[in-house]
């Protein structure tokens, strides 16, 4: 009950992992250091920048604001799991590429995971809704216009794909 380490078993991008973690380890550090999935980025480590956003059971969450032990038994999606396979990109990723939605790429994993959930819940958003949706993700290149364009383009592509 009071141990300092625990075994964490969870599913990340469809693959099951089981590893020991110090109970104070954040989920973000567990994903990056223990599992070696360094696509999830860490900017501020106190819940402001949004770079570490992952999907926890399909809902976006900041992995720096969760302990790894809390994710035991849950399902996680990181940026590595968005593309359908090694050859193709997800339509959202394609839209980012085509609309100059990324410059340095640091904020991109958080932007993609955030928008993946947002476009699933709101498939036909307005520009204002997109801007609010990514208001918790900081882009220090200040490339927001390209990101907003990409999100709106992705909405069209995803609707086309679904039709």
């Amino acid at each position, binding site marked *: *009950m*009071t*141990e*300092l380490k*625990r075994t964490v078993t969870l599913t990340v991008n469809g693959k099951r992992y089981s590893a020991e973690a*110090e*109970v*104070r380890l*954040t989920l973000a*550090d567990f994903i990056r250091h223990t599992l070696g999935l360094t696509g999830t980025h860490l900017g*501020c*480590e*106190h*819940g402001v920048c*949004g770079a570490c*956003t992952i999907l*926890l059971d399909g*809902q*976006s*969450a*900041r992995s*720096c*604001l*969760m*302990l790894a*032990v*809390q994710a035991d038994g849950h399902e996680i999606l990181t940026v590595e799991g968005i593309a359908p396979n090694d050859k193709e990109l997800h339509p959202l990723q394609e839209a980012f590429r085509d609309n100059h939605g990324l410059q340095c790429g640091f904020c991109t994993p958080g932007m993609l995971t*955030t928008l993946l*959930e*947002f476009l699933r819940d709101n498939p036909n958003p307005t520009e204002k809704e997109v*801007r*609010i*949706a990514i*208001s*918790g993700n900081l882009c220090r290149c200040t490339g927001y216009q390209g990101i907003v364009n990409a999100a709106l383009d992705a909405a069209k592509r995803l609707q086309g794909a679904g039709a």
Partner: protein
Amino acid sequence: MKPPPFSYHDPRTVADAIGLLGKLENAKLLAGGQSLMPMLNMRYVLPDHVIVLNRIEGLSYIRETGGAIEIGAMTRQRELEFSDLIRSKLPLMQEAIFQIGHRQTRNRGTIGGSLAHLDPAAELVTLGAAFDATVVVTGANGTREIAFADFPVAYMTPAIEPSEILTAVRFTPWPAGHGFAFVEFSRRHGDFAITSAAVLLTADGAGKITRASVTIGGAAATPVRAREVEKALTGQTPTPELMREACESCRAIEAIEDIHAPASYRQHLAAVLSRRALEKAVTRIGQPVPAKLH
């Protein structure tokens, strides 16, 4: 930016959690983690024990009970944001919820965590004051209820005993067709409100205000009910002049000062935002709840 070492406990029942709280020294409760986790990462808090409430069943629910809406402490803000019951019965809450942080934080943040943390800028704390909510806490000797007026003891200090847990909160809905508005000012969407205003109104057939609740959040150490504004409006027709004049009294609020704004600015915002919220609430009196509140 890493949490300090602590022992981790994840009880499955409220009774077990209370037992741990009574037994362990320097323990902190972790609910949604959207306030405590940053504080741990920055080492503002150094607990020896963290007791996680996320594995306790039965603390997450929204239900109607005896004319009130009872919300379990571990109900995520997201569930309130998308609840039809909240939209129809407590539309002010849904308007406010959307202004809490971001989707990523509302997915995790809980109503109980926000109330127990008692940040004066928190939307849910302001709502507690606006609705005169009833806070339910559970300890070794059972549950007790705290009227929201008695809940904040001081800045970020709720009237919860060290061995008690906030388990639920009850809000009494205002009658159908009431006016409501939640308005806040922050530099960017999702930032902490520098100041906010929550308004609830009812009017009679002639358009005279029969009941008013006006609350200012974020300006003082705890949310403040603007009693003078409420009194000035009750029994009156809410003309633009009356609303503007009445809200001037909000400049007397004992405001806090921090890196974001001086006290005088918060007092100014209190007067401006309460007027804007009133104006918006008046237009909604007698109207059905809008399908979309954000």
